[in-house]
């Protein structure tokens, strides 16, 4: 049953006054899945969420809920609930009445409303806060009320629109873990929108990377991190060295002036490709044994590792290493075949200089 599609978006597009904000999106969400829409601002992730919530109508395409088209169903008849950006709590109601709002509409008996609101307050760690005014609460507490207000209605899907955006870093990390454990305990499908790649990697079962109204890649966090579909995804998810290269033949690629064995194949011979190497996948070796040699331009201590910028003449590599080499020294660089990620070039082949500029 868990593999059953709960929501299907089929070839959905959306125009605002002639501007295409969603361009032929297809996506499905399974029951009890934690799906994150990830992308920079303006990529269409919030619009996607709002279409599912019922606040926007797609210009084209279908939206299925358990196989039935719900495009024309108004928001108040959909079995989804939303946690809005900046919460949108009702300031004229206290905490209890905010949470009870949905239940009151369904004409739930008062005793049951009180019981379920109490239960929710306990779940989000706000026991005893029922009579408080929402404006008197801190940002984190308001956030919890917003979540409780949605969850008390026992939705099939909870939509969260950058719910942690207004919180400070420490609280955000705490809430990430809490949300994840809440989702697992309650067994509710979460659709989460964020521009924070770390948040996405921490919480999600599935990540949908979007840009300019298009889906670039769908996959689980590890897959997206290790096998980014293109240079944009690689750059957006974690730090990367992105170079233009040439696939000489299967399992052999040339970039930064050298040839490297790799594990990818099927690109043809002498084809232009994008090459992505994660900073932590480059090993520093003696100058004489490296596949590349370079000079260390700068060293920054980052807590668990050092970040070094190493100039090989044709490209400046970003390298993470736990051992420090002094600035100005010459080192060798080595990359194992498995860690070289080859992908179709995003645009026309970039020249080496441009790649260098964007990497520095």
């Amino acid at each position, binding site marked *: 049953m868990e593999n059953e599609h709960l929501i299907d978006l089929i070839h959905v597009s959306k125009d605002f006054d002639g501007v295409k904000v969603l361009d032929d999106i297809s996506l499905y969400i399974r029951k009890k899945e934690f799906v994150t829409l990830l992308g920079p601002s303006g990529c269409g992730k919030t619009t996607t969420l709002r279409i599912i919530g*019922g*606040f926007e109508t797609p210009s084209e395409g279908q939206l299925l809920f358990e196989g039935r088209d719900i495009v024309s169903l*108004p*928001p*108040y008849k959909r079995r989804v609930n939303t946690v809005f950006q900046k919460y949108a709590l009702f300031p004229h109601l206290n905490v209890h009445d905010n949470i009870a709002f949905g239940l009151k509409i369904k004409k739930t008996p008062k005793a049951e409303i009180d019981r379920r609101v109490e239960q929710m307050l306990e779940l989000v760690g706000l026991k005893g806060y029922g009579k408080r005014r929402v404006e008197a609460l801190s940002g984190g507490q308001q956030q919890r009320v917003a979540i409780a207000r949605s969850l008390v209605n026992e939705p099939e899907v909870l939509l969260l629109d950058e719910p942690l955006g207004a919180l400070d870093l420490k609280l955000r990390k705490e809430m990430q873990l809490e949300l994840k454990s809440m989702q697992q305990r309650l067994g509710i499908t979460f659709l989460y929108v964020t521009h924070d790649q770390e948040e996405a990697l921490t919480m999600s079962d599935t990540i949908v990377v979007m840009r300019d109204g298009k889906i670039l890649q769908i996959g689980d966090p590890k897959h997206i991190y290790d096998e980014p579909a293109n240079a944009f995804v690689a750059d957006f998810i974690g730090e990367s060295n992105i170079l233009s290269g040439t696939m000489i033949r299967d399992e052999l690629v040339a970039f930064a002036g050298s040839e490297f064995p790799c594990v990818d194949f099927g690109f043809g011979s002498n084809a232009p490709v994008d090459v992505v190497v994660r900073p932590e996948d480059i090993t520093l070796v003696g100058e004489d044994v490296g596949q590349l040699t370079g000079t260390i331009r700068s060293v920054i201590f980052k807590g668990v590792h050092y970040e070094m910028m190493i100039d090989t003449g044709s490209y400046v590599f970003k390298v993470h290493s736990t051992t420090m080499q002094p600035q100005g020294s010459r080192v060798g660089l080595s990359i194992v075949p498995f860690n070289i990620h080859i992908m179709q070039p995003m645009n026309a082949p970039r020249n080496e200089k441009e790649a260098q500029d964007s990497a520095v």
Partner: protein
Amino acid sequence: MQFNSSMPWWSYLLMGAGLLAFIALVAQSIWRHRGVHRSLFASPYTLWMIVFTVLPVVLIAYYAFTDSAGGFTLDNFRAFWDSNHLMREQLRSAAGDEVAATVVRGSVNIDTLVYSLWMAFLCTAICLLLGYPAALFMADRQMKLGATIVVLFIIPMWMNFLLRTIAWMSLLEDTGLINQLLEAMGLGKRQLLYNQGAVLLGMIYNFLPFMVFPIYTSLSKLDPRLSEAAADLGCNSWRTLYKVIMPLSIPGVISGITMVFMPSVTTFFIPRVLGGGHTQMFGDLIEAKFLTEGNWNVGSALSLVMMLLILISLSILRKADPNGEGGGIA
């Protein structure tokens, strides 16, 4: 649709209920059908404004550009520029060009307009001079006046506007309170009523609150830390007022000026009562054209000219307040 005061009182209620029912019906049908698109909520208002604001203005423009037979003409504007225009045209057809040429340009309309603008300017300037300090002191947090003082400025407006003006007659007339005071002090009687000064006083009296409120609103919205910051940076209290507070209250000043200047140009009751009919203002002129002379076409032309003048001066004023924040009177 003739209704007059001989109708029983409940018929008024009935009509009111009918009107309410209409609006409730419109509203009901709107929010039943489309939930998400709230912009439709504005449709009864839009309809209302088209019928009762846009259409009437179009009518004024129509009358201004037509003659009594309905044909297009610019004569009404000529009559505005030259109040003898119509007489001259009649003479031309009756007695020929030579006689007509002896009729000089009548400058009544232009003179009245200039006079009205001058009076309105004086009134606005004095209201600003009197009102700004008042608003400043009202907004002064150290004075701890709160909302009470605002209410004190509103309450006089509940006395009927006409009666408030008439009351000034009792104060200003020869045997009035002020003259009695002057006499008692051995200063002798003065002619206070039925002159330009009395009209100006009446205008200032009626329009001063409209200058004070917007300025007060914009001043009380200012962050009190601003003056602290200015003091911290070395401004004395005069410099703070001049360099920080005054520039920031410009939006309020502008809406104050608008709200005083506009009714000042067009007032027609105050000059009639306190000026004794000696001083005619542009509002009187328009009213007379419509109700006394029955010349709607020239009256409409006059109204149109006045509206244009006001719109032009407003758009110049708005330049100084590009955000259009204003102060509002609420």
